[in-house]
């Protein structure tokens, strides 16, 4: 498995890009001398150059520094809520597939209910109630993503359960929970990895869209979506202000999408989702 991973150029390149961006975000304080919030009104709206790598915004703040700190937010959003959504979807999917018809009906009904909402509008309702905090984004992303994850886990679990060794285990009287942990879970791992990788980009896009609409993070906090929102008014005069954070979002999302596709080919060549 590791060998076919290193033979897949796309996978290796996308991992490299993700790691580099993550390192840049983590070590942001060492990469830029500028503070994200410090305003320098004498050097407002500088074009990209040697002093300010990507120029400065309308308050004289360094765009490169803000972009690095904004990337931290995007990556945090990318990883934590998505991981929780995958865990919830996994638990629900397994219960649905393996713990009887009534549980299946209720869980699939719940999944259908959350999937009936346009994700963005559901997130806006959550922001209305809980404000634009990290917790709100966490809840929103879990609500948006768990349903489709649960459906896929359910169908994959159903095919795993068909295997003869699981039927043999059941005949021998092995308890359900033991079968789930020892036999079903290991078989689900490839699917879960692919689902996680493919849901990360949707999380990044959702968060950036909510920030762009101005209903999530509020200044002086930084976020890539908020940076684009703030530079909207100067789009025609200073296009790089909007370009830098948008490009960062795009590169991250693209890298995760390529990685997800490649991982699916490597880990799970037969499944289609």
């Amino acid at each position, binding site marked *: 498995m590791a060998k076919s991973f290193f033979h897949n150029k796309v996978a290796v390149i996308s991992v490299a890009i993700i790691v580099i961006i993550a390192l840049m975000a983590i070590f942001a304080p060492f990469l830029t001398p500028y503070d994200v919030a410090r305003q320098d009104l004498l050097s407002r709206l500088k074009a990209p150059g040697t002093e300010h790598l990507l120029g400065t915004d309308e308050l004289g703040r360094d765009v490169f520094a803000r972009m690095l700190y904004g990337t931290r937010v995007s990556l945090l959003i990318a990883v934590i809520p998505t991981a929780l959504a995958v865990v919830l979807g996994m638990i629900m999917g397994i219960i649905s597939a393996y713990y009887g018809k009534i549980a299946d009906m209720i869980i699939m009904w719940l999944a259908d*209910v959350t999937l009936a909402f346009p994700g963005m509008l559901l997130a*806006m309702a959550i922001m209305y*109630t809980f404000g634009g905090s990290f917790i709100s984004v966490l809840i929103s992303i879990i609500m948006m993503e768990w349903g489709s994850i649960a459906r896929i886990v359910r169908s994959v679990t159903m095919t795993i359960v068909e295997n003869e060794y699981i039927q043999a285990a059941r005949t021998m009287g092995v308890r359900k929970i033991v079968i789930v942990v020892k036999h079903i879970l290991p078989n689900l791992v490839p699917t879960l990895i692919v689902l996680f990788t493919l849901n990360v980009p949707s999380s990044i896009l959702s968060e950036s869209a909510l920030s762009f*609409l101005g209903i999530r993070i509020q200044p002086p906090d930084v976020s890539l*979506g908020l940076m684009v929102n703030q530079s909207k008014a100067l789009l025609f005069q200073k296009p790089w202000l909007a370009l830098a954070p948008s490009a960062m979002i795009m590169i991250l999302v693209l890298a995760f999408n390529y990685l997800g596709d490649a991982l699916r080919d490597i880990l799970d060549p037969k499944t289609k989702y």
Partner: protein
Amino acid sequence: MSGFLRRCVGVLLVLLGVMALIFIVLRIVPGNPAAVLLNEHVNKETIERLTASMNLDKSIPEQFLLYLSGAIRGDLGQSYYMKQPVLKLVLTAFPYTVKLTVFAAAFAWIFGIGVGVISAIHHDRLPDYLFRGVSLLGVSVPVFMVALFLQYLFYFKLSLLPLGYDGSAASMILPAIALGWNSAGSVARLTRSSLMEQFNEPYLDTARAKGLTARQAILTHGLKNAMVPVITMLALQLSSMLSGAVITESVFSIAGLGKLALTAVQTRDMPLLQGTVLFSAFIISLGNIISDLINSILDPRLRV
């Protein structure tokens, strides 16, 4: 037909869940919306009067039943901020969103299916790599980035198209492309893989034996079968398009549902937000039923 009926009952149950969920999400944090609305300086009686008129003095289950029976009769309540019935505001905004979504879907489907078919026919050769790159780029750019880029290029640099929506057909082009861009990417990816799965099917050999060229057989017979999953996706796309419409409508200032929902959040107008979200979920459920119907026409095996 009983399968279809069962499907409809399922959709009704989902809608009931949708109504319950949005009711809970908007009310889970305690606090009197009437007081928030009027702010603290108003005397107690006014607050009480408004509280009573909004049914906020009743218990939560009672409120839910009132809201449920209202929604069934088409009464989504009164907007706090705009002082008009929510249903009226939603129905005024809806045609704009329909127009935007239809144009966006048309763009996504023509562009997406075209790219997907070319990719599949030339699979694993240069045009395929090129177009697969384009479609992955399609699903990877944020909607607002496409929107701003289009404004920059077509309004500012080329002065070809208007900046915002002004009612003309020309001013709908940029919003439609901005909103359709993501979907075009997903449609292209799915069309490609779905069409390639048809390549080894025996019915294509039959079509070849009857004298069609390989390309004719794929385009006339293969494409029809390959469209089944792509059409199922239409329903899913509807949901993501309504999400994207919030951004597109705000960038191009179109007075549609997304803009209405955004205004509702900004002005803390709970009935308006509730009504808009509910209405969108209803549209999505309707879209699911319609896509089922279209698929059962295309593929007789799906008729239950």
